[in-house]
């Protein structure tokens, strides 16, 4: 593909400025004052890490911004990342009672950003490491799940080392987020909070089977947070042409902000309609692509991306070809992409689960002229690596099977969380799994049950018809009888 530079770097910089700019102090105060300070608040319930949202907002109101940030990081070690990339309209802000009262929810994400930015910029400690307990845990993967697990374990006094094959910590927080939502700097500075309390990072380190054996020998437990693998293959002719890109790999190049070196076509076809597909499409547009066409096998209503992502794509003038399946990539004599060959699809009769498949319509072939194709088809599982671990059980889709309360796997020494367990969800979900994993690991090693902020829904009073919450099953420990297992609560300082 012949790279072309349609925009001045200055213009691209402007295109990639914050999609949701930071609040000024005055804006934050006004917004914080709007919060009703609900009791047993729906935002806190909706947050996968159950951050005490009214508490952190109240602290912004009272000018206790450091305290506010600690409330956030206490329940979610990637609070600064989540402030920018969480689908808040589907989570906390979607649950805000102000949706019903004023039809304008509190801007929780931006308030969270205000508090966490302040904390990071002011270099105030957000975590405190526990008294060393002589135990060690290896964590594989420095993404949100692994990082979160590391922070909580360090707070409990463990020696924690995170291994990651990349040069920077943060996983997809660092390498996979749309640049206009979050820069690498944010994620890297956030992970530095853990360095500050002594979490060790071994970056640029591929965990080979040999190294894994060594880690098993050297550590009391291992937390697997390996995420997912390569983008799924399309399996059509022309897929290996130089103008065809894997969405995540391409976004990684955008993250370098070296604008002139990022390949972008004049007309870009994006295959897929998930959130990553939108990220790729909008960024291609912002880099100067004249046309960006998203191609999706199903209909508009079935688009997996969040509504606000769809709106963003539309406002960036991205075009959509619904009910179209790619069947080939046409290249010229030099191998450059000329077009994406598609066929129209039609929904079938719903199966017993109500799911509609889309079948190709014979003879409906058409071509979308383009000089670049970005595949955003979802990622494959790390099956090869995972299946090498004895006792680890994978489900039918290659996801690691865990106990939902403790994140324990089939191998007693291994715990797991994040995308490798849930198949690929939000960073905030991964952060919660890291927290639960740390609690599970601690219980496995010490026999003690601890509960970190937001580990479970903060029910304060029991209601007659309240559904009983699952209490983590105590794991038998050789040195502790069941009677000795007490629950210890861990407050903001750990």
């Amino acid at each position, binding site marked *: 593909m012949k790279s072309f530079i349609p925009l001045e770097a200055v213009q691209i910089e402007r295109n990639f400025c914050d999609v949701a700019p930071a609040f000024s102090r005055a804006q934050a*105060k006004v917004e914080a004052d709007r919060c009703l300070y609900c*009791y*047993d*608040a729906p935002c806190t319930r909706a947050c996968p890490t159950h951050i005490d949202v009214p508490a952190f907002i109240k602290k912004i*109101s009272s000018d206790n911004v450091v305290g506010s940030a600690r409330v956030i990081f206490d329940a979610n070690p990637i609070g600064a990342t989540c402030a920018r990339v969480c689908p808040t309209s589907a989570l906390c802000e979607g649950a805000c*009672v*102000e949706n019903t009262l004023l039809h304008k929810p509190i801007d929780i994400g931006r308030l969270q950003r205000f508090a966490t930015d302040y904390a990071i910029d002011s270099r105030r400690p957000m975590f405190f490491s526990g008294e060393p307990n002589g135990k060690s845990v290896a964590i594989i993967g420095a993404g949100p799940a692994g990082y979160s697990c590391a922070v909580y374990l360090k707070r409990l006094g463990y020696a924690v080392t995170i291994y990651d094959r990349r040069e920077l910590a943060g996983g997809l927080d660092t390498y996979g987020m749309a640049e206009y939502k979050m820069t690498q700097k944010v994620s890297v500075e956030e992970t530095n909070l853990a360095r500050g309390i002594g979490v060790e990072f071994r970056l640029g380190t591929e965990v080979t089977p040999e190294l894994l054996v060594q880690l098993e020998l050297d550590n009391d437990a291992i937390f697997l947070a390996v995420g997912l693998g390569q983008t799924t293959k399309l399996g059509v002719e022309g897929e290996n042409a130089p103008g065809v890109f894997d969405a995540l790999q391409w976004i990684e190049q955008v993250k370098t902000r070296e604008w002139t070196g990022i390949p972008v076509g004049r007309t870009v076809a994006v295959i897929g309609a998930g959130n990553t597909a939108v990220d790729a499409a909008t960024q291609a547009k912002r880099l100067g692509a004249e046309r960006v066409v998203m191609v999706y096998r199903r209909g508009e209503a079935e688009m997996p991306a969040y509504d606000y992502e769809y709106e963003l794509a539309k406002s960036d003038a991205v075009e959509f070809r619904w009910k179209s399946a790619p069947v080939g990539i046409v290249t010229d004599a030099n191998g450059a992409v000329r077009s994406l060959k598609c066929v129209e699809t039609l929904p079938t009769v719903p199966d017993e689960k109500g799911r509609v498949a889309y079948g190709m319509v014979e003879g409906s072939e058409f071509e979308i002229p383009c000089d670049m194709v970005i595949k955003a088809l979802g990622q494959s599982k790390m099956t090869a690596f995972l299946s090498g671990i004895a006792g680890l059980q994978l489900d039918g889709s290659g996801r690691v099977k865990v106990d939902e309360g403790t994140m324990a796997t089939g191998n007693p020494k291994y715990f797991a969380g994040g995308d490798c367990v849930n198949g690929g969800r939000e960073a905030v979900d991964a952060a919660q799994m890291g927290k639960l994993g740390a609690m599970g690991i601690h219980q496995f090693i010490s026999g003690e049950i601890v509960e970190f902020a937001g580990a479970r829904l903060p029910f304060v009073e029991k209601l007659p*018809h309240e559904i009983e919450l699952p209490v983590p099953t105590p794991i038998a420990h050789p040195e502790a009888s069941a009677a000795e297992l007490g629950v210890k609560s861990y407050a903001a300082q750990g």
Partner: protein
Amino acid sequence: MADLTSNLAGISSPNPFWLASAPPTNMGSMIERAFDAGWGGAVWKTIGEPIRNVCSRLSSIDGSSTQRMIGLNNIELISDRPTEVNLREMAQCKRKYPKHALIASLMVESNREAWHDIVKRVEDTGADGVELNFGCPHGMSERGMGSAMGQVPEYAEMVTGWVKEACSLPVIVKLTPNVTSIIAPGRAAVRGGADALSLINTINSITGVDLDTLIPNSNVNGKAAHGGYCGPAVKPIALNMVSELARDEFTQVPISGIGGIKDWRDAVEFLLLGSTNVQVCTQVMHYGYRIVEDMIDGLNNYLDEKGFASVNDIVGLSVPRVTNWSDLDLNYHTVASINHDKCIQCNLCHIACEDGAHQCIPLVQIGDKRFPVVDETECVGCNLCSLVCPVPDCITMVSLEDRGAPMTWHEFTNGDALVQATTEDHGGISNGHAITSAPVGTPSEVVHGSAS
């Protein structure tokens, strides 16, 4: 359009909205702009022996980031302009605005001749009346003036008497709220011959401390002194004091209500509780003279809507509704009623009742939502839930039908309890009504019991 013409003890004004004696009435040009904006009257910033002010002077507290300055504190003293300049401008202003009320606020040393002299000079300007500043609580009070007068009923009576000896104009006495009971100085002023009372002046206050410098507000080269507090925050205190004087049979002179009036609604409340007109300051310091437009407009619309032909028709209408606690109906009972169609599940009513009241609003799972539900058998009708509820008309207090016949504390105890209580507790005055008409002062001269 209702008739807004107002008359306070013979001083008429096109509407009941006056500017209080304060920074917005510092000089003739300001007052002329205020009259042009629609103000019905103005009390000139207190004239007296020229003083020297300090810097800085004002500090405030905020309600929230969008509700600035709900309370304002001032340590500025009376006018720092020469008396002759003030009086000359006053004469010019009055000539230019003959139909508006122009009042001279006065404060001079406690000396008969000084008061006689200043009053005469004011009369020469053509002003409509004088207001004796017995309320300023900072600075001037340390020199035996301002609230130092208002806090000693004998002084208030004596100086009012001196002024009345020399003054042919209506005399308004402005009272300080920095007293145990407003009744005693109010009665003293009336005994001295006051034609009207105005209240409240500002309340002693320190608005806060700078947490970095540790210097209280407002910082005058490292130190601070208490100032006079005003603004919307003080309205409830003012309303109570106005109503106390309106109810007292020995202070039956017109009242000019002052204290935290920010809009026509506040003004109507002052009128209903016995004020003939109102005086405004802080809201003008915040937003300018222009605010009077909505005060006039809102008052007019209210009177029209309620069918009152004149603003004077509502003066004091709520006074009979103010009573002593012991005359309240013990059998009146309301309970909270929560409209679940409007409820947004913020649960503020639940936690307020749980931790701040009577634990009678549990959260109950109804369908897929958790709603606050009132346990009517436990609800004491305190109102707290309805006060914290952010949704208009979501929580209402409903009167219970099956209650007993009305019964007061007096009736409940056959009158014994109160008599016993007041006899045993020497200082126990149920309200200002227990004070005899004269003389006032030492506790031995206070007669207990209810006079009303």
